[in-house]
């Protein structure tokens, strides 16, 4: 069981990226990898209106891994230029980072009104 190294990237209008990965064993006997990929891409375009007009860019799992292993590499910071160049936008805060900032802000406010760490932890559980 394996996933093809080839990946199709979809560029959303805002520069965010979707990625489609392919299961090798799902290929038909007389089908090449490219034909299999094309069949899956066609299906996504026909079944999902939000895919229909997106541009696709052939890529590899290695390309994606290279980006995600950069400092601050994260899917939520992965962006694609219109020419298909992948990059990490370090200025973007992930949803988890925003959540943790809000949590810390709430903790600071609770401490300011005199709650102890134990009381705050009990509230957060």
């Amino acid at each position, binding site marked *: *069981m*394996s*996933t093809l190294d080839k*990946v199709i990237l979809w560029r959303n209008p805002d520069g*965010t990226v*979707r*990625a*489609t*990965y*392919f*299961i090798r*064993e*799902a290929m038909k006997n007389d089908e090449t990898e490219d034909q*299999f990929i094309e069949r*899956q891409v066609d*299906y*996504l375009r026909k*079944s*999902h*209106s*939000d895919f229909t007009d997106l541009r696709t860019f052939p890529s590899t*799992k*290695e390309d*994606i*891994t290279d980006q*995600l292993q950069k400092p601050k590499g994260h*899917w*939520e910071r992965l962006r694609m230029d219109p020419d298909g160049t992948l990059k990490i936008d370090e200025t973007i805060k992930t*949803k*988890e980072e925003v*959540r943790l900032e809000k949590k810390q802000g709430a903790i600071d406010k609770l401490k300011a009104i005199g709650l102890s760490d134990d009381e705050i932890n009990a509230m957060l559980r």
Partner: protein
Amino acid sequence: MAYTGLATINYKDPLTTIWMNSVKENFDDMAENRCFKAWINFNGSGAVSAHASFNIASVTYNALARYTFIFTSSLTNTYYGFWGMGRNTGVNHTVFSYCESGWANSVTTGHVDTEWNDQDGGQRNASRGTFCVMGGKGGPGL
């Protein structure tokens, strides 16, 4: 459904068409109603990879915690059951999947769009997840 016909044959009795048809009927029932129609065990963080799967042709990572699974062979209808469960190792939370109802046609005979959340309702990728589909015979009122 009760198993039929199988008790009527004894050891070393010759196989008959009736008995073999009975076996097939029971097998078809198991395949239709009691077996998984599709499943995948996958790593959904970073570059997605499948560790093992059945009847899944592709996985699309749409955005944080949102995956689309396309079946290799389409199912006969959309009255199947499905669920996913996994772990997000980043925050060490268990994650669960549900149908992404915000999309049109998110549960079809050809694919399922899913979103994965943790116990607090936060969207989380499945660092290691399993997604399963089973049943689906019949339909409304059956």
